[in-house]
């Protein structure tokens, strides 16, 4: 390997190496921004901990109260924002490649809504959630995360199956794919509303939270599950980064370059659905992050999936952390629902994409 990299230095021109270095720099900058935002989030909140108290708590000291705030409120919230942002952005990034559709993402195709319906079904019909009702904010603990996740995944998968079937049988254009997504979204939203009609109060509050998106809900065990699933998917995506690059040049070209296009597409779509569904199962619907994060980083790193994948994940995390900071800052001490914030952020950008005509070529 060392020998190879030496040869790289002798033959590959400086300009290309510089070009690669610039993209690596973009990745590092995003990482730094993410770290800075995470720190900022740690210091912001209604409890008013000073920096000294915070440092003390993080290094093992601090009062019981400050430890509770840091380890049970703020840190989990940051961890959730990072993993959910990354999961949604990765699924959007890969869906856009595999479906050859720049408007694809979990929320625009209806996968999120399908997953939310699955989660709601688990909570209301299968009695998998909504146990303690001490106060409105903590009312919603999931008693059986596994069931909720599984049902969310199945709901998301149902949507993905319809979209894939549409691609296969009708070779759907990007716009009709999105229209199908709109139809599926309203179908699942309608079904979720119907479920709410039959729910009791506690269940209802649980389901309503879903439609908001709430980063404060998952506990550490759910967070670990989200990280494990998202990381595994990320590694698979990264392993296939050259296959995605080949697929950007067209299906035939990709096949002639040795890519098993069908297999890659099915596994990729399955994993995209899985990570988006898990995010929805624990946090609720967070729209548009998955759509816009890849588009933002494309401006800086182009369509090269070597860089696009990690940068999209970082950008997704950054967007959600920013959204969360905004949610806390707008009407303190209330924390506005993150789903509403990202929609306000994302919808104008979505429209911009359409106006610029980049989206539906």
């Amino acid at each position, binding site marked *: 390997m060392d020998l190879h990299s030496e040869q*790289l230095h002798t033959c590959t021109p400086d300009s290309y190496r510089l070009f690669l270095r610039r993209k690596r720099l973009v990745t590092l900058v995003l990482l730094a921004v993410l770290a800075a935002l995470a720190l900022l989030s740690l210091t912001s909140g209604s409890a008013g901990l000073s920096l000294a108290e915070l440092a003390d708590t993080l290094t093992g000291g601090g009062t019981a109260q400050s430890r509770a705030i840091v380890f049970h409120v703020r840190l989990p919230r940051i961890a959730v924002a990072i993993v959910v942002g990354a999961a949604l952005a990765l699924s959007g990034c890969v869906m856009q490649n595999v479906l050859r559709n720049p408007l694809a993402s979990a929320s625009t195709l209806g996968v999120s809504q399908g997953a939310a319906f699955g989660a709601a079904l688990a909570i209301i019909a299968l009695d998998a959630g909504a146990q303690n009702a001490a106060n409105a904010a903590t009312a919603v603990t999931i008693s059986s995360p596994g069931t909720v996740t599984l049902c969310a995944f199945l709901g998301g998968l149902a949507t993905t199956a319809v979209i894939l079937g549409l691609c296969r049988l009708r070779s759907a254009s990007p716009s009709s794919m999105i229209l199908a997504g709109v139809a599926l979204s309203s179908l699942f939203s309608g079904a979720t509303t119907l479920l709410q009609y039959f729910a009791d109060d506690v269940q209802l509050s649980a389901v309503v939270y879903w439609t908001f998106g709430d980063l404060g809900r998952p506990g550490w065990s759910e967070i670990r599950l989200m990280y494990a699933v998202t990381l595994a998917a990320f590694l698979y995506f990264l392993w296939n980064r050259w296959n995605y690059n080949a697929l950007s*040049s067209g299906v035939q070209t990709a*096949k*002639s370059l*040795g890519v098993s296009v069908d297999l890659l597409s099915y596994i990729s779509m399955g994993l995209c659905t899985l990570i988006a569904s898990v995010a929805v199962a624990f946090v609720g619907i967070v729209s548009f992050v998955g759509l816009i994060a890849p588009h933002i980083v494309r401006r800086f790193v182009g369509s090269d999936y070597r860089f696009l994948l990690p940068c999209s994940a970082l950008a997704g995390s950054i967007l959600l952390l920013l959204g969360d900071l905004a949610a806390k800052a707008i009407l303190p001490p209330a924390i506005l629902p993150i789903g509403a914030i990202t929609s306000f952020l994302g919808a104008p950008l979505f429209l911009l994409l359409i106006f610029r005509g980049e989206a539906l070529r």
Partner: protein
Amino acid sequence: MIEIQNLSFSYGSRPILQDVSFSLEQGECVAVLGNNGAGKSTLISCISRLRRPSSGSVLIDGTPVSQMTRSQLAQQVSYVAQKNELSHTTVFDAVLLGRKPHMKWGPSGIDYDVAEHALRAVGMEDCRLRYVNQLSGGEQQKVMLARAIAQEPKLMLLDEPTSSLDPRNQYESMELIRHCAHGHNIAVLVVIHDLNLALRFCDRFLLLKDGTVFASGGREAVSSENIRAVYGMEATVEQFDGIPMVIPRFQRHESS
């Protein structure tokens, strides 16, 4: 040596290719000629396994293509489609993609070297960091050729590589394609409509008619009689600077 044996393909009950057999050597540039719908592109896609032939086989140095994995096949056969989807990637990355079948986790130093040489072979080294979707048609064609060269195949399949190019780029591209065959010792199979380009740059000719091989051979295969039979067109073939030229004798429909 590449052998195509009794290859047949049909869409449902409609036969497209019937019992096509021929062979080509490495270092040889073979033109596939014939009318629209004669099965030229289908032949190319059956050889590259983009389509599965209903019967017959393709052998590369004695090994049937059907027994190779897609990745193994891609190490032996490169394919340039008639139309390419162009993403927002640089010329160098587009060429480096040709090393994909040879990569494990990512490109090695050798992969970078081969890509760089392929880029120089088509004379595009000054455009290394330009984006492929911002290039002219002729430049894009050269990048696609460079990718196919970087794949270091035994067989290169080209589907109408000159159809959207201006005359000068047609000649430059065909010159490059001939150089791939002769200079890089690759067997090249090129689907082409322009008979004069084919006669000038290719070594052998395969004339398809209704999915079967009507004639094959050297320049003598492109004769007035064969052109009439394959294309349904009157033409004379005359020598110009030692190269045969096809001059169509188009009969105007007189309305009386």
